[in-house]
């Protein structure tokens, strides 16, 4: 069962995503912000991270840079209420960028693709 880590400072979003993704058969863990994120990633080894951008004390784009330094190929989907962060070049380091919506169809589609992605070892 793929393990998904949701990082979002809105409790409602964390609850909604948890329910919807668990219904799809994923194991879900959550964090309310970036505090301890790298340690949690190290400990839990999620198959994909869904990462909010604009959080109270953290910026998801900066967190993404930190994740990439240690986990070169960890799938990360940026998930924001704002589409404007797409122009930030830091977003290029994400697998996908999905704008938050009440319909989770696109997020689920991108999650599926991110989990299916495969580059063989040499």
């Amino acid at each position, binding site marked *: 069962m793929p393990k998904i880590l949701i990082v979002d400072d809105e409790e409602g979003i964390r609850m909604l995503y948890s329910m919807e993704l668990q219904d799809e058969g994923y194991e879900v863990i959550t964090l309310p912000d970036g505090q301890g994120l790298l340690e949690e990633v190290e400990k839990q080894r999620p198959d994909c991270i869904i990462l909010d951008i604009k959080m109270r004390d953290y910026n998801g784009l900066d967190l993404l*840079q930190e994740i*990439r*330094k240690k986990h*070169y*190929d960890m*799938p990360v989907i940026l998930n924001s209420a704002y589409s404007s962060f*797409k*122009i*930030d*070049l*830091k977003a*290029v*380091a*994400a*697998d996908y960028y999905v704008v938050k919506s009440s319909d989770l169809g696109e997020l689920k589609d991108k999650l599926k*693709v*991110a989990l*299916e*992605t*495969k*580059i*063989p*070892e*040499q």
Partner: protein
Amino acid sequence: MKAVEDNPGGISKAEIVVGIPSYNEALSISFPTQQADKGLTKYYGERSAVIINCDNHSDDNTRQAFMDTPTKTPKIYLSTDNGIKGKGNNLKNLFAKVIELSAKAVIVVDADLKSITPLWIRDLGNPLFDSYDFVAPLYVRHKYDGTLTTNLAYPLTRALYGRRVRQPINGDYGFSGNLAGIYTESDIWSETAANFGIDIWMTTLAMRRRVSVIQSFMGKPKIHKPKDQIEGMLNVVRDVVETIFQLMVRFDSFWKDVKWSRPTAVYGVSLGDLELPPPVEFDVRILSDRFLSGLHAHTDIYNAILDRQNMNKLEEAAELPASGFEFPTGLWAKVVYDFAIAYKRNLLPTDQLIDVLLPLFYGKTWSFILETQPMNTQQVEEFIEDQCLQFEKAKPYLVERWFSG
């Protein structure tokens, strides 16, 4: 390969090397040499460094222009033998030299660059001291600059090798001493790699060998000697496409198992205000004429190369009114895949095969220009991302046909 070496300082070791490949760049080479020197002095003053001009025995005094450029960093001039041309041959000389110098980091910049700053040296070099092996540049480019990259090289290499390198055929990059060793030992080489195919050859080998790749944001747009976007690009298109096809044949056991794609990390993203790139003009009438006349002239060949359904759709697109012309990317991806398969099966001599691909490439470029006309840079980037997804979605078609006899 090296025929001439001028190493007045007797340099035998260097941690960091800036390589400047050239052919008849006497009027341009001083500027990137000076900027490289400033960058090396400012950001790598503690490390041993050298600037190497790897030349094709230019007859316009490039050697003298380079060696006479005042720099604090020592310089070496390398050249192929008289009559041996090709950027790839210059780079091959550079690979051998950096191994000899035991260099840890190598930065390559074009000799005709007008917009390079010392920061480019830092941004292409720093990731190499932070465990990355290949640094590709990320520039802000005008939406019509680099249509070969946008419509073919980027989406195709991304779909094949699964790594998103936005500028896989650019002249400016960084690579580690480790990767220089891989390049030197590679038994894959060809006439096109020895020429303009070298950039895609280097990027593809880095992706295939799964070394760590990062993209570095260059801040300023790339401005260099102007080239006609159609005629001036002909040899580049030929060499790049043929090199991609050669590598596809060689690496098919690898890319058949690649599914979708992964991003790369990005370095140097907080550089203040962006400078806008200069506009690039295209005469779309030339593109439409070449597409339509080529399609008409080579119908029999297209019928032999393209899957019947793709040929039908292509003819359908050609009947659209010029103002509403569209070459759907899903169709373009399958057309490119059909041509790669024709290359593998030797359906035509390679020169002829690429000559008949060209009108279709012009058709795709014409469609791209029409579709992106009202878009800003960000919208075009999203459009290009969508094109890449179409290549990735169509990949099972390639795999199925490629391996079916």
